[in-house]
């Protein structure tokens, strides 16, 4: 089975995110990056499937030079190869342009299943997987908390507000997995060393048949108009303990129906 994991390499958890005041977008150049935990869950799920049924697992991602480290993490975990879409013309792409690039790269090779996280852990749009599925003409199955493949059928437990739905789809298909679906493995040291020898294929926008007007800032239909901080929340009530503090807190919790 040929599995594609579509995931993002994001600024490392130790990085304080800054917004470029001119573009209103996150500053990604020149900061430390790592494989998005959501993408790591997708890679893990793909590896478990590959280990069961055999085949390949290719990570497909888009971003600057800085993201090589995160690509290598996926390869060190066990991905067989990676595709890195890398072109200055793609900077500032909105979700649709990103999906076009990803879909074009994925479509260059045969595939059976695309696995994505439900949303990235930096920008949280959650839109790209659906767009990729549409562009490739495969069914999107979302919010999987469990997934299995038997023959040509993908079966997932789809998280819902009241519990879960069991959903089936014929392959090829795209599935998004929730972060709780698994505990991603740590790469083995041998895997980290072996990752250096694995293929990272690079595509430019032109390689993918994308014109300058389709992608990047120029092609973005979605514009970020304003970035602001969340409103400050009022300081809660401070209970001074005059001997009745415990009771007052208990009454407050009871009133809020917490206890």
């Amino acid at each position, binding site marked *: 089975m040929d599995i594609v994991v579509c995931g993002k390499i994001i600024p*490392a958890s130790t990085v304080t995110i800054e917004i470029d005041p001119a573009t209103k977008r996150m500053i990604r150049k020149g900061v*430390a990056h*790592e494989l998005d935990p959501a993408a790591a869950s997708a890679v893990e799920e793909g590896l478990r499937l590959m280990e069961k049924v055999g085949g390949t697992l290719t990570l497909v991602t888009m971003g600057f030079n800085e993201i*090589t*480290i995160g690509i*290598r*993490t996926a390869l*060190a975990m066990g991905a067989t190869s990676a595709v890195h879409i890398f072109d200055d013309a793609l900077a500032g792409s909105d979700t649709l342009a990103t999906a076009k690039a990803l879909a074009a790269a994925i479509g260059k090779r045969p595939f059976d299943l695309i696995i994505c996280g439900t949303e990235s852990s930096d920008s949280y749009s959650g839109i790209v997987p659906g767009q990729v599925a549409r562009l490739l003409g495969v069914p999107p199955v979302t919010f999987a908390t469990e997934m299995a493949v038997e023959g040509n059928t993908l079966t997932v437990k789809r998280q819902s507000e009241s519990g879960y739905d069991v959903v089936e789809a014929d392959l090829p298909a795209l599935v998004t997995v929730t972060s709780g679906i698994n505990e991603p493995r*740590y*790469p*083995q*040291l*041998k895997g*980290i*060393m072996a990752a*250096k020898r694995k293929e990272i294929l690079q595509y430019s926008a032109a390689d993918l048949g994308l014109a300058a007007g389709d992608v990047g800032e120029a092609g973005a239909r979605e514009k970020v108009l304003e970035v602001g901080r969340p409103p400050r929340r009022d300081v809660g009530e401070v209970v001074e303990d005059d001997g009745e503090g415990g009771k007052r807190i208990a009454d407050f919790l009871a009133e809020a129906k917490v206890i």
Partner: protein
Amino acid sequence: MMDFTLTEDQVQLRGEIRKVCQDFSDPYWREVDARGEYPEAFVGKLTELGWLAALIPEEYGGIGLGITEASIILEEINRWGGNSTACHAQMYTMGTVLRHGSEEQKRRYLPGVASGELRLQAFGVTEPDSGSETTRIRTTAVRKGDRYVINGQKIFISRVLQSDLMLLLARTTPYDELEDKTRGLSAFLVDIREAGDALEVKPLDMMINHHTNALFFSDLEVPAENLIGEEGMGFRYIIDGWNAERVLIAAEAVGDGRWFVERASRYAGERKVFGRPIGANQGIQFPIAQAYAHIEAADLVRWHAASKFDRGERCGAEANMAKLLASEAAWEAANACITTHGGYGLSVDYDVERKFRETRLLTIAPVSNNLVLAYLGQHVLGMPRSY
């Protein structure tokens, strides 16, 4: 020109080991310390992932990385609140077998050490009456047929109960019969699992959770094939491993130092007294900044020593200076961190007191900093022997 910028591979290694270390957070180490337990879950995870096999060549089942990379691994363990002493010896004790053992010994032991199936992380050298003066050790190994019979005692031998094999230094020629006093000692691999009552292991109650012991040997028989290299050359073999060990200990100290500086500066910014953060006072701020500068300086010497070691150049001076400077800088940072935290620094819940106890060790072990100074004075600066 010296350039110590990490390579892309080294950055990757640092990032990956960091993730593992960060998942073993303060409460884990606090609990292990409080119970006096061996951090089995952490060491087991590092073993399973192959990190402790970093220095073993690929042909013997390891990864074949250099001291620079190994030092990054140990630095990260200490940087994120852990304690490398629990497992660093599994990384480098095998060096004596690798450098001086026979091909048969390497093939028999190193793949098991690399996979973690064999733990070789006990190193029996120090004795009650000969600490730094290693050439005076009294534990004897007497050849009887195809075996050596060991008698004597050792002290401060760590991780014996967490090891399958121990590298042991014992006397094979009486001291008085030697012309060259650095001869007469031999290195053996002792299979602890087969020692039975001939080896008594008495755990010592220590200030740190170090799993260290007193050992008593009573007619312990070791097969002659377990002798490493030539009889009488054991002291030389051990010296060969010192520079690597010094660099690795320096890296651990740098990791500790960075942990202290981060905790101290964060707390100094958060804790308010007299209406402002305590870090706004020079009395609090400057010692932290000073320790930081010393750690960064020591780190440069550490990289210098590590790169010289990995290029196969003589690095005794640099390795010793790195160990000296880094352990002193970490201790300085530890003190600044305690001062910054005040009474909270002594509270177990803040983890500072634990790290404070742990980093103190690095100024006196595996070699006292006084002896490092003696080495620099005599062997680097050409002054008379001072001890």
